[in-house]
């Protein structure tokens, strides 16, 4: 059977008005002059559709800072893609929301940082609460599919029930609650972000009750932190199997965190067609199938369920992207994860996401 991608995540820009310390973007944020052009993106969407992509995520950074966003949405609609805008909503106007609707945007995801203004704005590192509330109203009014997404971590996980209620109050059709994954800026902030075991244990019951309460009104997607699991998460349905990410500078990757695997070379859509990158590029072929696996994955009956887990995490924690994801309790490296889980919770001193910032130097210190 032919291998066809289903999903393209277009990271249109790294520019963003928010400074969230859990951002999965790389520390080396690309400036606007490194971004690929409108015509490049349109060609990428056309090529993605021809490869079989059905779902398009327009993300970033903050995709609203791209002035050509409406043009890109219109092109996505013309190629037949189902389009989702993943936004902070900061800077959105009603006029622009109307234009995005007219251009054919299907679905809007607005990020919220907490159920209450004070903590939400501390986490975002900027005023953003009012803009989000207002944007949610326009998104509902204009009839978009509407998702509220919230990244969870130690400072807000105890508010999980209130966060879900807040999403329902905003009229969300879906709420995505994803515990922080430690990529990019989140690595710099891991000790301040990691929840306690007690918090994680409590969260599951809260989610179960909310799923029952909101069934038929709002879908609840809860992503447990993988550090607390016995087995790793399946990496995007398998490396180079379903998913393509194109970064602001045009580099195409099998996962949004893959650029941290420094042993890989990523080809750019500026130089190569998306089809070539999908079929032939060294990065997309690196961990396809199971030939690359070491033990215990190689002989494991779970290898087609979780594909050995996350390649980015294996590389980050062991220096070798072909090792078993250390989250797996069958991995020889699991002690690395357990040591993190047993560590004392660190104070809420975040390294806020900032273009050109020196990693490790706190720019603002929030308390929570």
């Amino acid at each position, binding site marked *: 059977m032919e291998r066809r991608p*289903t999903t393209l995540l277009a990271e249109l820009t790294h520019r963003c008005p928010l400074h969230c310390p859990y951002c999965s973007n790389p520390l080396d944020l690309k400036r606007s002059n490194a971004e690929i052009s409108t015509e490049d993106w349109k060609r990428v969407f056309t090529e993605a559709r021809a490869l*079989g992509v059905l779902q398009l995520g327009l993300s970033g950074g903050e995709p609203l800072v791209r002035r050509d966003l409406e043009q890109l949405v219109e092109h996505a609609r013309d190629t037949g893609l189902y389009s989702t805008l993943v936004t902070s909503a900061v800077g959105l106007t009603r006029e622009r929301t109307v234009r995005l609707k007219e251009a054919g945007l299907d679905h809007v995801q607005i990020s919220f940082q907490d159920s209450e203004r004070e903590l939400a704005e501390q986490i975002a590192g900027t005023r953003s609460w009012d803009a989000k509330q207002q944007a949610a109203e326009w998104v509902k009014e204009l009839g978009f*599919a509407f998702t509220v997404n919230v990244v969870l971590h130690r400072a807000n996980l105890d508010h999980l029930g209130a966060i879900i209620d807040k999403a329902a109050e905003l009229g969300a059709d879906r709420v995505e609650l994803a515990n922080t994954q430690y990529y990019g800026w989140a690595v710099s902030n891991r000790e301040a972000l990691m929840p306690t075991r007690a918090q994680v244990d409590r969260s599951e019951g809260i989610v179960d009750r909310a799923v029952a309460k909101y069934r038929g009104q709002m879908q609840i997607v809860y992503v447990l932190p993988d550090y607390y699991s016995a087995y790793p998460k399946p990496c995007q349905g398998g490396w180079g199997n379903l998913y393509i990410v194109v970064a602001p500078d045009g580099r195409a990757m099998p996962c949004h965190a893959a650029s941290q695997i420094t042993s890989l070379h990523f080809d750019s859509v500026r130089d190569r067609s998306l089809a070539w990158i999908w079929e032939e590029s060294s990065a997309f072929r690196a961990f396809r199938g199971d030939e690359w696996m070491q033990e215990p994955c190689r002989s494991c009956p779970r290898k087609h369920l979780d594909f050995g887990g996350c390649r980015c995490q294996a590389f980050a924690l062991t220096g070798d992207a072909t090792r078993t994801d250390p989250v797996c309790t069958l991995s020889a490296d699991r002690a690395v994860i357990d040591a993190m889980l047993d560590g004392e919770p660190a104070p809420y001193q975040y390294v806020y996401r900032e273009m050109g910032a020196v990693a490790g130097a706190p720019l603002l210190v929030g308390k929570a």
Partner: protein
Amino acid sequence: MTATIAPTARPALWRLARISFDPVRKQQVLLYPEGAILLNDTGAEILALCDGKRTVADVAAALGAKYGADVTADVTEYLSQLADRELIRDAV
């Protein structure tokens, strides 16, 4: 365990889901926020009848008449799975 959809339910596609033809795979596909399901011919036929007016029993009867066989069990199982994922909703 998937709950079984009632024969009297009047299934309709979720407001935010839509069926579209994928010219690449030459197949109907159900698209919705953050997801897609490739539909085989039977699935597409079943969903095409789910207009929020016909009951599950009506859908099964219509397809059964077309194929000259009792397809109630297959239709019920298929719709129960989609209902469990909230991709179809009871319009009543």
